[in-house]
């Protein structure tokens, strides 16, 4: 039990932070806990949560995926182009969108594993390529999506629970939880903790790492699909992709995953994403002058990622955080 808390305190912290912020938000807002309000908050949070989950996997293997926001944008553009028409075509389209995400992830993974490139550089470059592809698919913002599908994805389930939240839960249960339990999934943690030890204990280092990037592509594609359902269009925006990439890293860190790898998990990143989104909502209800909002948002972001510094004050010896000699 103590071990469980020790391993998950990052995620728990983010969860409590979100609950606190969300209660203040609901209390201050004045309209109470309405379905519409919850759906709006959920919709905004779920997109970032999916991209942050995607980012978590490469980070767990002590890598990084700077192209994750661009995969999100690319799949959004693809979805806006092919998801209309008869039912079977739409169904095939969804599969195609998700597969394109996996393919992007596989390219990243292959460059890192077989090309032996540093993840940060490889994904920086593939991010530019994916942006170019997104621009080819959708040179100007537009497109559409089958209205029934879009409605189904953005409505409420059973009248109260936002469907996007249900989808997020489904993704966690169907993708993340099983993955974490497989040898490949545990291999990702092992690589992050110590790659050479993982290799010597016979863990399939290459397969785990490749799987981490491919799964990241899949999760980003699910996000891209949902974004299309919400906006009913595709937009190959470089800034949009960049913001999602950077926010996803922040969300992962707030959610308690170490950038060194090996520690953390996708659940924490989800709460981290919701915390990030709640910040801007809070500033809105507190009537902070719009011009000052970005500044305070930045300060809160900086403060949230700096919370990890508490461990510096506890460390008995400075050597502990100077890193292992390479």
């Amino acid at each position: 039990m103590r071990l469980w808390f020790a391993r998950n305190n990052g995620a728990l912290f983010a969860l409590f932070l979100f609950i606190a912020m969300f209660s203040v938000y609901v209390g201050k807002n004045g309209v109470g806990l309405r379905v519409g309000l919850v759906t709006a908050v959920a919709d905004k949070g779920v997109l970032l949560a999916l991209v942050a989950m995607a980012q978590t996997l490469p980070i767990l293997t002590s890598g990084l995926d700077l192209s994750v926001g661009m995969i999100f944008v690319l799949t959004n553009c693809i979805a806006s182009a092919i998801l209309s028409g008869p039912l079977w075509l739409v169904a095939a389209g969804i599969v195609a969108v998700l597969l394109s995400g996996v393919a992007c992830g596989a390219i990243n993974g292959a460059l890192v594993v077989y090309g032996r490139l540093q993840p940060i550089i490889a994904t920086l470059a593939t991010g530019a390529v994916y942006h170019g592809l997104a621009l080819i698919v959708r040179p100007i913002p537009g497109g559409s999506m089958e209205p029934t599908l879009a409605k189904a994805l953005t409505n409420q389930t059973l009248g109260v629970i936002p469907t996007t939240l249900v989808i997020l839960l489904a993704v966690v249960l169907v993708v993340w939880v099983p993955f974490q339990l497989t040898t490949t999934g545990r291999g990702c943690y092992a690589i992050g903790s110590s790659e050479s030890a993982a290799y010597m204990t016979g863990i399939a280092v290459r397969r785990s790492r490749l799987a981490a990037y491919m799964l990241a592509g899949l999760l980003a594609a699910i996000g891209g699909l949902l974004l299309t359902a919400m906006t009913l269009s595709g937009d190959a925006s470089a800034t949009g992709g960049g913001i999602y990439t950077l926010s996803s890293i922040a969300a992962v860190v707030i959610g308690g995953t170490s950038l060194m790898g090996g520690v953390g998990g996708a659940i924490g990143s989800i709460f981290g994403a919701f915390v990030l989104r709640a910040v801007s909502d809070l500033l809105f209800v507190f009537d902070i002058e719009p011009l000052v909002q970005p500044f305070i948002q930045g300060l809160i972001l900086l403060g949230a990622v700096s919370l990890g510094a508490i461990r510096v004050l506890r460390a008995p010896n400075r050597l502990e955080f100077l890193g292992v000699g390479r």
Partner: protein
Amino acid sequence: MTRVLRVVDRPVVIAFGFIVVLLILGGMYNRQFLSGFYLLQQLRVASFLGIIASGAMVVILLGHIDLSIPWVVTIGGITATAVAGWWGPSWTALGVPVALACGALVGLANGFGVAFLRIPSMVFTLGMNAVVQGMVVMYTGGNAPPDKATPILQWLAVRDTLYVPNAVIVWASVGVLVIVALNRTPLGRYVYAIGNSERVTYLSGISTRTILIIAFVTSGAFSAFAGAMLAGYAGKAYQAMGDPYLLPAIAAVVLGGTSILGGRGTYLGTVAGVILITVLESILSVMQISDSVRQIIYGAMIIVMMLVYGRDRRADG
């Protein structure tokens, strides 16, 4: 001669080779690409990226990264032009020093977060970027400060001295400064040492915190300086003017053979990387290749170059 060969390592040679190949290919498309005038113009455009990349390189040599570059560039451009509005037109000469000071302050904050709070540079500088962005919005949103480039900035960015663009001279001076600091001073040795192992450097009795802070201050000051010059080049300062410079700066440093893990790399390589990226973008835009294809070629180029010489030697066989 042997000395020269020792300094010039393989990535640098390959990067310069790529530049020559690019120029020859460009020359086959249009003779203009080989004219002295065109090349000098390219160097002028490259100098802004070059100054930013100089700071980014010092931080990368430490094994860290500075993601606050975009808005430090912007705040540099905005303060350099806004000084006239604060204290009156007679103070315009202070534009560049004030911009440098602002950049150095942001760098100091970055250095503090990384060296003392021990927050990974990637997230701390990312947070600082958001904070600086907020400051710029807060300051420029309500009352629009003067954003027109002052004569000094224009002189720095678009005028020539004896046919050589002033911007190139500025970049060359920055370059000499960095080369001397990295190769001829203890500071430079310590930067490479920390990049290889901060732990060992610390145990050798070197104040690694000081070095980290100096590096981040350098990066901040250089970025803000480049922002001021960019304002001179574009004729005005504007929001988000630094956004297109972060990724090219990192790419330039890495294409020049500097290891993203720190500890290895030469300034000459960074120069090659900067020119390579500038020439590539210029040729692609002159050939009127659409933005989408340009992005793909740009990304593919980085991947190919890195596959040629940037592979790390990992143990996983």
